[in-house]
């Protein structure tokens, strides 16, 4: 439209003016400017829409899926979606792989949320966690370093079928398990995914009544959701420094193992790091999180994803039980999403930083040892020569 204002070649300016064809420059600039503004508004509206994802409201699964795709669009060089399984109802189980590409295989951090459908604050945390690391790595040198050295694998909702079910209506809100039908003669749906992993499966903290909320399934990893994690993490177990699984409620940081007769070989380290995380949590909003092995501070259980991960050799595996302590329980009000996520992020970051530094800041010590060896050799040689 504004092209016509540029003038008509072949006709002298005087003639253009006489013919009303020569427009004042300002008008032309106005025209271009208006078009540009219109264009910007269109882009701006789209941008504003994206920037307004509300991390402090609960989102249904369709919105979480769109959000995941948007994260890839917004950060194409840092984020990819990886589909690693299917739920019982054939939905894709996806994670966000986040890291600065270095072209070589990297160590990794695992975070999963929403193993239990009714624990809505957990998927909310995973979304917040992703937003936070993507925001801070650009300005925070430590996070940038960690993004370079490790990849973050974040599954916002593992038990997708169950999560969708809890959104159906008020009577389904408190569903916990997945939605597989279980054995044929069973009158009820669902297996407790956090009793279904191959870690002392079916021993304690379970009920073989298939209608029970702690029904562990027909055998270890019988459930497609548990199987997906088992296969994905299991085939890459040596890259994982850290495995965090997020639940609610209870305000706890749990270390392996759930079985009272088993102690993790690095129990002392796990307790030390866990207590550091709890202190980091407390510093944010003054909330107390209790740290301990599940059989000590909560109850004995078996077949949890955390225990399975530890048994794979992943050294730092923790379960987070987020707010609250029972007042609202699973139905944590939305105005508590932000403070809960902030404190949990701080706790998770403490563990992640420890896991990272154990592997990568050791490079400094490695260099010192190498220097020692060289100098020692030189010294010995020198002494001999003298």
């Amino acid at each position, binding site marked *: 439209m504004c092209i016509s204002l540029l003038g008509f070649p072949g006709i002298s300016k005087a003639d253009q003016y006489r013919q009303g064809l020569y427009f004042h420059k300002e008008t032309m600039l106005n025209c271009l400017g208006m078009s540009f503004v219109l264009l910007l508004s269109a882009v701006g509206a789209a941008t504003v829409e994206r920037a307004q994802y509300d991390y402090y409201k609960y989102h249904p699964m369709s919105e979480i899926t769109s959000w995941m795709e948007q994260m890839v669009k917004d950060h194409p060089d840092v984020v990819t979606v990886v589909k690693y399984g299917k739920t019982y109802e054939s939905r894709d189980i996806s994670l966000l792989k986040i890291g600065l590409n270095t072209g070589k295989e990297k*160590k990794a951090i695992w975070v999963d949320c929403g193993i239990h459908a009714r624990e809505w604050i957990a998927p909310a945390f995973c979304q917040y966690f992703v937003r936070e690391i993507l925001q801070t790595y650009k300005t925070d040198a430590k996070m940038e370093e960690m993004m370079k050295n490790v990849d973050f694998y974040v599954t916002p909702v593992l038990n997708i079928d169950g999560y969708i079910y809890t959104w159906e209506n008020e009577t389904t809100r408190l569903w916990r398990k997945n939605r597989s039908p279980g054995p044929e003669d069973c009158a009820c749906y669902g297996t407790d995914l956090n009793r279904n992993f191959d870690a002392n499966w079916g021993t304690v903290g*379970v009920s073989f009544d298939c209608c029970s909320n702690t029904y562990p399934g027909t055998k270890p990893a019988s459930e497609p959701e548990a199987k997906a994690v088992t296969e994905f993490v299991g085939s890459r177990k040596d890259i994982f420094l850290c495995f965090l699984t997020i639940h609610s409620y209870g305000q706890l940081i749990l270390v392996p193992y759930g079985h009272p*007769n*088993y102690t993790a070989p690095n129990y002392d380290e796990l307790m030390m790091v866990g207590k550091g995380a709890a202190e980091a949590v407390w510093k944010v909003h003054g909330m107390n999180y209790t740290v301990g092995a599940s059989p000590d501070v*909560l109850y004995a259980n078996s077949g949890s994803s955390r225990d399975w991960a530890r*048994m794979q050799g992943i050294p730092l595996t923790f379960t987070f039980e987020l707010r609250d302590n029972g007042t609202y329980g699973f139905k944590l009000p939305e105005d508590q999403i932000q403070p809960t996520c902030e404190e949990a992020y701080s706790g998770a970051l403490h563990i992640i930083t420890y896991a990272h530094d154990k592997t990568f800041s050791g490079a400094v010590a490695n260099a010192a040892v190498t220097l*020692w060896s060289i*100098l020692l050799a030189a010294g010995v040689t020198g002494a001999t020569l003298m």
Partner: protein
Amino acid sequence: MRLVVVLAVLMGVSGIPDVTISPPTASADTSAHPNSIPETADESEQMEGAEEDVMATGELNPNHYPARRAAQVVQHYLNTRYGSPFRLIGVQTVHSGNAEDVTDSRRKYQLELSVNDIISNTTQTCSAELSFTKGKGQQPPEVKASCEELLKIDIKAQEEALYQKYKTSQTLMSAQYLPDSHGHIKPDMEPFWHLGILASSFIMLNESTENTLYNVAQVANITQLTTEEDHLEFDCHTLLHEMVSQEIIHWKMLFTWSPAEGVKVLQMKRLPHRHEREKSPKTN
């Protein structure tokens, strides 16, 4: 010599590097785990009670579950005694505890704990004594606790106002799903959410053992009923969450409330609730 000193300093400053990722000592095959104790087929069928049989005795770790569960029982007791639509009590911290077997079937706990009124956010330290019976003929736990400081915040005016409003109203109130799925409760319905929790506290107190931890997951329905007497009367359906089994248990109650008398539960009935879990019923 100087060289050795330099090297020693280097070592001291940087530290011996820790082992990075070591291969697992525990294999995925659980029976080969260094700490494993072989499980027999019988044990695998037991319910969660198996490992609970050996209970902590003597000085209790305040962070461990025996003290925490006992404290929760004290919370339910305090709500039956001191609770109000404007006063709701929660456990804040367990400071110390002690447990002992009094007889073959009775265990006694002593606790020092801090509780707070969730509404006014005031905290008080209390001492409590409770005893659980176990085995056959299980009875509700007996609790003795005194937390008089909780009564210091004056809520009489609010209670009277609420009572008068609903005593004289032309319509009977009714509310569902407190809180709703997103954790929200309309401000004028909050006192009824509290009442639902208080009435449930009588049930939670009765049902508690050393192997349970109860909270109210939701007040599904609370409906006012007509009555000529000097109290408000309610029919109420609440969902309790029992933490150890992770089950949601439905209870129906008939209860009354007045500022003078507090909450009195007239009837309570546990509901068998399967329909949300059941597959499509086969034709009978």
